[in-house]
């Protein structure tokens, strides 16, 4: 094993780290409710002993309110276990299930005093009190449904007015019982038909701060006969059976993680017996089991199709294989039924080093954290090695039968998203363009000539509705080039957008290899004759191109427009942003104070000799048509209705 096998343990004692990775390796979809209760207990112990997760994964703390119309008191412990898998720790507010509407509708409720970051609203069919009468006409059913939706709209608007929390609301799982039998499917006033309509309307009417957890889908996946459990309902007022609690809380955890920007970003795949059947080095391209006419070969084809769908919606793909590189590439180049092509992969590592080392390389190369990786390998020994040496990486347990790979990957919910923006759809093309940039950098005589040759153009503007989702996404997932790592909900960003004491700025960048999209965000607040930078971050795909100098110039111009005498900034260290430590110093700021946790505060007096910093970037677009330049538009948020 190579020396670099062991990565940073973040100063954590070895036995603690082993306890953590043992704990994390036990979390899976098959856990029962009693097992989860036991695990919640060990989690409390682990959290007492160490306030961090092993490896390079930083912990996120957040405040979550759990509300609903049924007894929710059995959900927090399982939820905490599944959240640990996403490196999230929560303070929970548990609502009284008889009072969820009062909690939401009264401004002075304990709920709003708690200031939740996310409000979870779990509803089942018992919460619906407006039902169509028998033989109601189409118009009458529509009217009842509209009034029911209005009840929800009122709740959503109240939350929006009271705080900046995001909401996760379940749709309604259709119950098992159907008094009209199959005839319900074609009877508009029946419960089946009506609840389907409500779910459809919920999807259409939910505003962007409301995220839908598809309980109807989950109940089907698990089986409604298990999802609903009448004895449990009568005994405890929890309509879910206890065998449904793991299913629900696991999905909930994935959605919460997605809202917090903790979803995984990159799927790393082994090749032999993971993407195709057989070992290509032994049987050759012709001998592989891959393609139509063979049951196993078809399973691999469908698995590849699913992976390509993930890639098309923005999941980065990488290969990590023990192989000679030319042998590993051969099936991609010459097997007629391969679905995935070499160009689908943003990193391709085939060599004989151990996989823990290679996975670290891939993370470095793609500039993503180790906790952003999901690694799939059919070989249990490789999985165990990676889990042991790089605990931050997610390594799903794979069944022996490749026909089940697709399901395991899907059920994991690793790549759950809160919104889908056009940035996600073209992300993988950025990585391809980046590979070409690196090739150009290799032939350019010096950095300046390289930057000049990129023909960079930046456009920028104040936060607006059109760019809001991408801005919120960047704020919540950027870890490295981020001075304060301040996370904000869409509501909190909206507050800043509307407040004139704030200066907000988004920046887009494109160059001769393509459009990089919206890549930087700055939020500053004017107070007491200074302009204080609260958030300044940049996507890691454009580091070291002088874009920070371009942004500094914008900041300087704004400070002069406002007539402040200085600009101030803060560097708050995390485990991932050490590259930013001396950022303000390099810009000529003076250090005001260093706090106990390493946070430093900086000030730049705007004397006459403070001037623009040189860079190789042209300022593009008029203020009016910013956001519409380039091929990456942002008028595209599919979840925004």
């Amino acid at each position, binding site marked *: 094993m190579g020396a670099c096998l062991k990565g940073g343990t973040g100063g954590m004692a070895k036995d603690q780290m082993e306890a953590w990775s043992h704990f994390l390796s036990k979390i899976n979809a098959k856990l029962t*409710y*009693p097992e989860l*209760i036991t695990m919640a*207990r060990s989690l409390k112990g682990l959290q007492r002993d160490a306030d961090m997760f092993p490896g390079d994964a930083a912990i996120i703390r957040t405040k979550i309110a759990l509300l609903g119309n049924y007894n929710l008191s*059995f959900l927090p412990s399982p939820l905490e276990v599944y959240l640990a898998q996403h490196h999230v720790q929560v303070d929970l507010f548990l609502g009284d299930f008889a009072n969820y509407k009062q909690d939401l509708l009264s401004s002075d409720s304990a709920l709003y005093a708690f200031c939740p970051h996310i409000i979870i609203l779990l509803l089942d069919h018992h919460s619906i009190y407006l039902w169509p009468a028998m033989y109601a006409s189409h118009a009458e059913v529509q009217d009842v449904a509209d009034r029911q939706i209005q009840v929800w709209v009122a709740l959503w608007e109240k939350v929006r007015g009271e705080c900046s929390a995001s909401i996760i609301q379940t749709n309604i799982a259709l119950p098992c019982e159907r008094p009209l039998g199959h005839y319900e499917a074609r009877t508009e006033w029946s419960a089946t038909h009506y609840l389907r309509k409500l779910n459809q309307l919920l999807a259409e009417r939910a505003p962007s701060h409301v995220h839908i957890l598809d309980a109807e889908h989950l109940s089907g996946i698990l089986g409604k006969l298990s999802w609903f459990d*009448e*004895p449990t309902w009568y*005994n*405890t007022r929890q309509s879910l059976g206890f065998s449904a609690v793991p299913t629900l809380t696991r999905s909930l955890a994935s959605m919460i993680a997605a809202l917090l920007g903790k979803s995984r970003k990159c799927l790393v795949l082994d090749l032999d017996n993971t993407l195709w059947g057989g070992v290509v080095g032994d049987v050759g391209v012709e001998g592989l089991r891959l393609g139509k006419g063979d049951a196993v070969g078809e399973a691999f084809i469908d698995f590849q199709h699913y992976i390509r769908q993930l890639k098309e919606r923005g999941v980065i793909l990488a290969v990590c294989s023990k192989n000679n590189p030319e042998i590993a590439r051969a099936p991609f180049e010459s097997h007629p039924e391969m679905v995935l092509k070499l160009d689908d992969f943003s990193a391709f590592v085939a060599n004989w080093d151990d996989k823990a080392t290679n996975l670290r390389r891939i993370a470095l190369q793609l500039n993503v954290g180790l906790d952003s990786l999901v690694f799939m390998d059919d070989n249990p020994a490789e999985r165990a090695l990676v889990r042991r040496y790089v605990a931050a990486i997610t390594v799903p347990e794979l069944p022996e039968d490749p026909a089940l790979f697709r399901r395991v990957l899907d059920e994991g919910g690793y790549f759950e998203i809160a919104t889908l923006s056009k940035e996600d759809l073209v992300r993988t093309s950025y990585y391809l363009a980046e590979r070409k940039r690196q090739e150009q950098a290799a032939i350019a005589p010096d950095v300046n000539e390289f930057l000049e040759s990129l023909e960079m153009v930046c456009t920028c503007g104040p936060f607006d509705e059109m760019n809001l989702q991408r801005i919120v996404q960047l704020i919540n997932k950027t870890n490295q080039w981020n001075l304060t790592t301040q996370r904000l909900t869409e509501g909190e960003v909206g507050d800043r957008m509307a407040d004139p004491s704030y200066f907000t700025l988004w920046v887009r960048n494109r160059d001769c290899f393509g459009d990089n999209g919206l890549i930087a965000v700055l939020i500053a607040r004017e107070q007491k004759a200074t302009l204080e930078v609260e958030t300044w971050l940049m996507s890691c795909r454009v580091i070291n191109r002088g874009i920070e100098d371009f942004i500094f110039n914008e900041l300087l111009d704004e400070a002069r427009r406002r007539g402040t005498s200085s600009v101030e900034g803060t560097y708050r260290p995390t485990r991932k942003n050490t590259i930013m430590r001396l950022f303000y110093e390099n810009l000529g700021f003076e250090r005001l104070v260093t706090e106990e946790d390493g946070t430093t505060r900086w000030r730049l007096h705007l004397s006459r000799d403070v001037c623009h910093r040189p860079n190789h970037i042209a300022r593009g677009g008029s203020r009016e048509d910013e956001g519409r330049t380039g091929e990456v538009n942002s008028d595209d948020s599919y979840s925004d209705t």
Partner: protein
Amino acid sequence: MIHIQIHERLTKVFREIFEDASLEVKDEYNAKDIPGWDSLAHVNLTIAIEEEFGIRFLTAEIASFACVGDVKKVIQERTKV
């Protein structure tokens, strides 16, 4: 199942739920006798017992349990061969 087996397996479940490795469970015990036996622990206990013995209590049985001995009786009834 013989009484002693039921007692041992039940004790194991109680020890796990109440996090007390030396907990001794007596037939006349009820929620007042074991610290931490609140309504949440009660449901967790019921489910863990169902899991341990592979049985499902009836709605009416759960409502009627007054002490540990009552639970044992039902388990014995259900696990008869």
